[in-house]
């Protein structure tokens, strides 16, 4: 595009340093008005920092920001809102017990009051941009897609002409993604500018007019979707070939390692049952994937198998032994490796050195302990082994877990959980929030585990990962397994429909 059109946003030479880390370095970005401009890059590439700078949350150390031809500098988001920039964060910031109207006017009462005038304005906005939304609905009754529309309306209500969306599709199933993209096209048609941050390349190619790629904190290229494929973008993003989760030939045997039958779980707060009559088996050398929108009982299922929560009914058998009444420690000793979904809360002692983290979950077994005493030498030596063979990038095993990047923390956890000859590996969102390099490594480790004859229970929100790694996929909805799909034939869209309760494809 030519320079005669006034640009919506122009960033020049933006740099931002944190202690020891360069988050952004010489970032240049030009966004034209009335377009959807995607900013892509792998996790940790510096996309979020850049957007925080553009929204006034953080001040850049160097470089300039121009909005609609005027150079600006923000000391807070309020300054950014004043020049017409709005941001929708990945994690929604809505009060559940308020209505849509109340959430939208909250903090912007001066614009159109809180009553009929505000309601009229919201209706105008909603119909202008094709958002089907009732201003008086309670937010707690809304689905994820609708909540996101409320967030966007909130930003529009405050007069934003440039809207930043941070990973808006991360929480959506494919159908909702399509709806969101329709909304974005409406916004564009009305002359608004959308900056769309993502690392999902197919989506970006579908919706963006221009794509800027960020790698290791700096902008490497800006391209037009017509000229590139997802593969080209990936190469730009990582600087090398993109790995794929797809597994090799089947290693499934007929020997059952995990057998769950009739397991349930009652909501301690009196809501509907968290789990109802769950039954499935996993064989030696098999990966069973669990697909489902988050919050449909996946975490609870894992906790029941681990013995953290207790099912009032049903049985769990591991390698032929009934473990339903055993403690978490006994189950781990029997051979469960567990990669938890939230590694910071459940997988690590962040302020302890790596070698102490090696002991966690293995307190009762060599090489970590002997007869009630911690075997420091044994634990340290084995941590060295994990660091080397799982390629954990760290200055040493006395480094605190907190200092490592997400990918390296996860590699340490995978290495630890694969120690001590497990027969079952439970992997909950194993590659969430890790960089592409670590993602490929973790996929490899899961494939290796399968080849070595482990039973693997894989829970993931990344449908490509689920389809690529699993031998079978069970769909979970409202605490029950509602069907099974064949990963060799199912598409992400079909899987997405099944997850929201539509007919399960045969």
């Amino acid at each position, binding site marked *: 595009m030519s320079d005669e059109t006034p640009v919506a946003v122009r960033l020049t030479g933006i740099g931002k340093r944190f202690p020891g880390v360069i988050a952004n370095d010489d970032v240049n970005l030009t966004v034209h008005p009335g377009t959807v401009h995607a900013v892509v890059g792998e996790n940790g590439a510096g996309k979020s920092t850049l957007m925080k700078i553009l929204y006034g949350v953080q001040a850049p150390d160097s470089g300039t920001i121009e909005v609609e031809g005027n150079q600006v500098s923000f000391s807070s988001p309020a300054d950014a809102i004043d020049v017409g920039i709005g941001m929708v964060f990945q994690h929604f910031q809505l009060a559940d017990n308020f209505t849509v109207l109340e959430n939208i006017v909250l903090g912007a009462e001066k614009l159109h009051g809180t009553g009929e005038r505000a309601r009229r304005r919201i209706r105008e906005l909603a119909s202008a941009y094709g958002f089907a939304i009732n201003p008086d609905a309670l937010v707690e009754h809304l689905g994820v897609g609708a909540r996101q529309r409320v967030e966007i309306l909130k930003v529009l209500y405050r007069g934003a002409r440039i809207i930043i969306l941070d990973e808006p599709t991360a929480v959506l199933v494919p159908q909702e993604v399509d709806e969101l993209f329709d909304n974005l096209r409406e916004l564009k048609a009305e002359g608004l500018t959308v900056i769309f941050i993502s690392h999902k390349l197919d989506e970006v190619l579908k919706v963006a007019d221009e794509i800027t790629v960020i790698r290791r904190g700096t902008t490497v290229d800006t391209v037009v979707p017509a000229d590139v494929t997802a593969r080209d973008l990936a190469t730009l993003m990582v600087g090398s070939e993109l790995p794929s989760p797809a597994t090799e030939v089947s290693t499934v045997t007929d020997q059952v390692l995990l057998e769950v039958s009739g397991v349930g779980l009652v909501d301690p707060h009196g809501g509907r049952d968290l789990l109802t009559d769950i039954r499935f088996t996993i064989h030696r050398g098999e990966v069973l994937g669990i697909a489902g929108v988050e919050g449909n009982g996946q975490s609870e299922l894992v906790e029941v198998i681990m013995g953290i929560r207790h099912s009032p009914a049903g049985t769990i058998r591991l390698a032929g032994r009934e473990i339903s009444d055993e403690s978490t420690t006994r189950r781990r000793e029997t051979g469960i490796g567990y990669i938890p979904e939230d590694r910071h*809360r459940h997988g690590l002692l962040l302020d302890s050195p790596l070698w102490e983290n090696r002991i966690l*979950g293995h*307190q009762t077994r060599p090489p970590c302990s002997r007869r009630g005493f911690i075997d420091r030498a044994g634990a340290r030596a084995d941590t060295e082994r994990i660091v080397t063979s799982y390629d954990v*990038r760290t200055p040493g095993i006395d480094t605190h877990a907190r200092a490592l990047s997400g990918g390296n923390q996860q590699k340490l956890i995978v290495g630890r959980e694969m120690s001590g000859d497990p027969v079952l590996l439970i992997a909950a969102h194993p590659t969430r929030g890790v960089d592409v390099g670590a993602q490929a490594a973790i996929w490899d480790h899961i494939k290796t585990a399968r080849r070595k004859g482990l039973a693997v229970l894989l829970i993931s929100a990344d449908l490509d990962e689920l389809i690529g790694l699993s031998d079978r996929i069970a769909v979970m909805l409202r605490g029950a397994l509602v069907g099974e799909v064949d990963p060799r034939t199912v598409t992400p869209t079909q899987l997405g429909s099944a997850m929201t309760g539509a007919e399960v494809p045969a």
Partner: protein
Amino acid sequence: MIRVRSMLMTMAAPILAVALAVLITTVVLLAAGDPVGRVWGTIFSEPRPRNIVNIINSGSVLYLSALAAAVGFRMGLFNIGVDGQYRIAAFAAAYVAGQAWVPGILNIALAILTAMLVGAMWAGIAGLLKVTRGISEVISTIMLNAIATALVAWMLRSVAVPGSNNITTTPIPESSRVPGMALIPGAHNEIYGFVFLAVAAGLFYWVLLSRTRFGFNLRATGASESAAVASGIDTKKMILAAMLISGAVAGLVGMPLLFGDSYSYGVTFQPGLGFAGIAVALLGRNHPVGIAFGALLFAFLNEQANALQLQAGVSAEIVKVMQGITVLSVVIAYEVVRRANRAAEQRRVAAELARARAEATEVTG
């Protein structure tokens, strides 16, 4: 090299904190118009042999009290109740030892066992309430302190030696007293024989916390309860166990005084040791050696302050002000050092990543 630097920074924190406390106390003294030079001259004068003995003796008692609090701190439990636990335990032990049901050294062993059991039970009440009913141990131990005070006063009345103005339990027989040690030349008072009890408790604490599986589970629960649960630790059991151990150690606090000084429990038995212990544990960062330094520093200040009224005409309470400021500034100093260490560590990790990356490019490029 890295470890040496981080150790130096750790040592720097308490030294800076004491310096800051001296500075602020000086300001307080100046504001009150007190003779600053004479106050510091008195406090920082060389202690006489007699004072050295007193410092070691009261230091050992403070040390036990701080260990009791530190056991709880290491797993995120705030046992405010050491004060009540040591008093009720000391009373029970004094009563048992005074009855002399068994002779000599056996009597001592029985009394110590009683003290530990009673201390553990008293703390265990708070532990049980927390595990079964989710009641904060801070609230329950504070209340148990008040109950312990009243209970001991009431029981003391019913068992006190009749006909005496001094209300005490029956004195421990000569054969069951722990003789002192004349270790400091020139002092005619003696160091408690039970100083070794403090040393033994310190060793036990160190081995338990940093060498055993139980200690690992305890620290892991303190560092992250959710991660501890996922790793298979029964955190409820750990809460109860930690409170019981904390209470048992608290039970030992009164023993050096009982067997080396007063030989009975009476209304004049030294109060307030539990709260001083919390401050000393904070000062020593829950580390057995750090606590030892903290306990000796507090004992030193208390002892030297005794002469303030005579030498400088200033109330000895000024030392309490200084101790309070020391604890506050040490907490701040540790936090500053912790953040500095964390930032330094992140820089090292970033450097490591950059190096690995450079190597990778060399290989491919």
